[in-house]
């Protein structure tokens, strides 16, 4: 079983990202379980959502505290939220960031990938200029780093599930899939993998 934690802000579609990815993994033949952080939601405030993926029925019904992988929908969150807390060494961290800023210190035990989901969302007119909807780009990018589910499944899930601008959202996922940047694997991770 793999556990994934999504970090975002209220209004960014973080919970929807987790649900869409759950549906896509289910289409790809996996058992899934997805749920939001059980808080009182406010626009702009940090939110979390969770996803479990497995080859057998998922039994655990608890908050995910030791995720294998994380998605961070707003890289500025790392200043205020301990996004890597409890994360299992060697897991993937996917950041939405426009720059190739050096995050290596924070992610020294993990594999890091980045995507400019904000730019992709804005170029596809998703959301507004102040609140771009980055969630579909993020799951497209995540499918690339995990190598499952296929981008076709991701795009079909988006088209079937998103009523507002389904084509543009699917296009954003595709563009993100193609433009993910993989950072050098840190020494600590390489050593663990032997």
């Amino acid at each position, binding site marked *: 079983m793999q556990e994934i934690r999504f970090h975002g802000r209220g209004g960014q579609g973080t919970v929807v990202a987790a*649900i869409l990815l*759950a*549906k896509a993994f*289910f289409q790809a033949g996996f*058992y*899934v*379980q*997805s*749920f*939001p952080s*059980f808080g*009182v939601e406010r626009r702009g405030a940090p939110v979390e959502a969770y996803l479990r993926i497995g080859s057998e029925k*998922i*039994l*655990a*019904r*608890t*908050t995910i505290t030791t995720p294998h992988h994380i998605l961070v929908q707003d890289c500025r969150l790392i200043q205020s939220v301990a996004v890597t807390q409890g994360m299992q060494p060697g897991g993937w961290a996917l950041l939405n960031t426009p720059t190739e800023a050096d995050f290596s210190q924070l992610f020294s035990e993990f594999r890091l990938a980045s995507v400019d989901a904000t730019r992709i969302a804005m170029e596809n007119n998703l959301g507004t200029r102040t609140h771009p909807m980055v969630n579909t780009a993020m799951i497209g990018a995540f499918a690339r780093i995990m190598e499952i589910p296929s981008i076709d499944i991701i795009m079909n899930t988006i088209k079937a599930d998103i009523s507002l601008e389904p084509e543009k959202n699917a296009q954003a996922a595709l563009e993100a899939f193609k433009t993910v940047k993989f950072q050098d694997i840190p020494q600590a991770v390489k050593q663990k993998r032997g």
Partner: protein
Amino acid sequence: MKQVLEGSHAVSEAVRLARVQVISAYPITPQTHIVEAISEQCSSGRLAARFMCVESEHSAMASVIGAASGGVRTFTATSGQGLAYMHELLHWASGARLPIVMAEVNRALAPGWNIWVDQTDSLSQRDTGWIQLYCEDGQEVLDTTLLAYRLAEEINLPVMVILDAFFLSHTYEPVDIPDQEQVDEFLPPIEAKIILDTADPFALGQMVPPGAYMEMRHDIQLAMERVPTTYQQMDGLFAELFGRSYGDVDSVLCDDADIVLVVSGTVTGTCRQALADLRSLGEKAGMLKIKMFRPFPNEPIRRALKGVSKIAVVDRNCSFGAGGIFAQEIRSALCNFETGPLVYSYIAGLGGRDITGDTLKEIYYRTKSSEMPEMHSVWIGLNQE
């Protein structure tokens, strides 16, 4: 067809498939997604029902009581404070013998204001004459809601289908949504035994003097006593049609177990995993899930626990001054049962605090290392000052 569905929407889908005719509700977190989806079904025409928005939970229950007295299939849903506000009318629904079905999302009672899971809201309605069925996952929620209608309409008592806040109500997972034709076969249109009719007027809920009141109460008790057999028949019929059944309790690996963990709601899933872990370590652990709380399944519990030396009851609730509520009920089920196990009572996970596999293992090992249970419920995972 199997699809990834939110627990709340498993209820909404079941209500649509049951062809419910009148729905009345007032929104409250974490129940709102249930009636939100039903409201959309009604406006889109997927469900041909009257949806009534009312100004309170008290009115929600009052209006389904009115509709059910007219002989139609009804539904409402609530949670926490909303259920507490309905309390007076819960008695009315069962006293009038109306087959109402309600989804109840377990939410902690205030103050402190808390929207997360805690079973004290529904368990404190245990004496209202409602059948209570607790669910473990989204599929069980959908199936139990369908079953609840058959049971309610056969017995003429209201049924509460109970699911944990967030861990079930807001969790997406694969759920098989059955075909309408199959559901129609299992659940034909209501044949109401009570129908207020202006052409043939009579009164419901009149003054009843001492000479008749006690017999009416006795009838309710007798109806409750018929529930286990009727439920078993319907559970069997459901299994024939849909290939799934749940039982009033689910006993897992109890036959050779020394210690059995007794659980309800979503803790059951986590406990199935913990049980597998404990067994792989060579521990003779078992699990008993309690699905039916009213009427309380005394006989199945006695059967499942025969030969077991200790049980650890995990309660996500508390009756202040008495302790865990499931533990009390189980003690009373085992009373006068000479070969019964020692009953250990634990309180955990109140107000949405996690009950993890580690929590359950801690409870197991604590029980194993103790010679005699304490008189009171032991609280697990309290913050240390």
